[in-house]
């Protein structure tokens, strides 16, 4: 079959909501787009452990500590589901690690911001995981089977993350003035970076049209961002917290909240590597990878030795 015919047949499957599986024919660009998107998503889960891991040893109670450990462990799990989904497209795990560690691959910029107080853990759970859920729920219907299936698992687990974050903030908002201020301060710092998590505006996102046609994406960046704002405004009222945007206003005509201008210079600056923690995050990942090398090698050597012994035993 000719390339054009194959591509038409592929698009027909997509249009009919038939999922694409690893060994099916797919356009090279579809494969490349997915490898990039899934591996970046995996990297985000892995790097996402770092800002939160920062507070495990200083969590204010045992309840908070076990919750946070479980959450960070989930993020590791999510990274692993996603790496294995990416591998079905023909890229190997080590190549992805190299891309992350060398700084060649991107991950979600949100994780380049520091976690300064305990309230930041609440803010991350509520806003960052909230934005991630907004993004990930439609991905459960992504046209690529392994990615969609990984997302189903991730979404199931993510809901605990968001709830524990909200509860942390609620506890602080019911506490002393100092605790309330701490929560408000965290929201002031995390709100705008969370809004940026949905990526550039639709006008500035040239790949969106193709990704929508291939049903990798189901909603545009701006659509998801709007959903996020609408949901958060009401949740903020429950918390009694103020979202740091003076332009936030209900628009009767649109049936949505209007919001202020996003600082895209800041966004691109962080993407380019100049955020508050980019260098620290990469350094930590590289150290973890390098320091774990002997463990990986020893485990492999042990298993090879054992296999050789077993084989020798059989001969004798």
């Amino acid at each position: 079959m000719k390339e054009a015919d194959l591509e038409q047949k592929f698009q027909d499957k997509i249009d009919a909501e038939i999922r694409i599986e690893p060994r099916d024919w797919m356009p090279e660009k579809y494969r490349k787009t997915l490898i990039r998107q899934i591996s970046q998503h995996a990297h985000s889960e892995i790097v996402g452990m770092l800002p939160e891991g920062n507070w495990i040893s200083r969590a204010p109670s045992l309840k908070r500590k076990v919750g946070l450990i479980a959450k960070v462990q989930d993020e590791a799990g999510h990274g692993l589901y996603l790496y294995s989904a990416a591998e079905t497209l023909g890229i190997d795990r080590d190549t992805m690690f190299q891309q992350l560690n060398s700084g060649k691959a991107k991950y979600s910029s949100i994780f380049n911001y520091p976690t300064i107080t305990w309230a930041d853990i609440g803010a991350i759970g509520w806003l960052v995981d909230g934005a991630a859920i907004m993004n990930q729920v439609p991905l459960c219907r992504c046209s690529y089977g392994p990615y969609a299936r990984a997302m189903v698992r991730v979404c199931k687990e993510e809901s605990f993350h968001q709830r524990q974050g909200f509860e942390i903030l609620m506890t602080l908002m019911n506490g002393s003035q100092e605790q309330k201020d701490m929560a408000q301060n965290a929201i002031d710092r995390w709100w705008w970076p969370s809004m940026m998590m949905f990526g550039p505006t639709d006008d500035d996102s040239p790949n969106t049209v193709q990704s929508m046609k291939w049903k990798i994406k189901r909603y545009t960046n701006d659509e998801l961002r709007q959903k996020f704002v609408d949901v958060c405004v009401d949740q903020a009222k429950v918390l009694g917290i103020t979202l740091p945007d003076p332009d936030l206003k209900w628009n009767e005509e649109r049936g949505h909240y209007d919001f202020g201008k996003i600082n895209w210079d800041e966004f691109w600056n962080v993407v380019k590597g100049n955020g508050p923690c980019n260098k620290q995050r990469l350094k930590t990942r590289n150290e973890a990878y390098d320091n774990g090398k002997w463990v990986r090698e020893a485990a492999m050597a042990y298993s090879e030795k054992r296999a050789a012994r077993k084989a020798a035993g059989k001969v004798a």
Partner: protein
Amino acid sequence: MSNTWPLWEVFIRSKQGIHHKHVGSLHAPDEEVAIENARDVYTRRQEGVSIWVVESKNITASNPEDSDAFYEPAKDKIYRHPTFYDLPDELKHI
């Protein structure tokens, strides 16, 4: 010595009486570690009572490009289905 851990496919039985079902894959140096890693990656919330791991290279799969021809023989055999047989409505328990 090979540098990277091999890839394993993971199958989990969610409870007694249910088939093992493919849930994903992971890397591990050997089958014992693969089982332990599968527990940590895929059953953190009691999703399983039994785990199978198979090294991915040992799986033989049918070719999706041949699937039209491959499954063709079953296509015209509607007489294998119960509804093919025309029976009166008043007939019960059949």
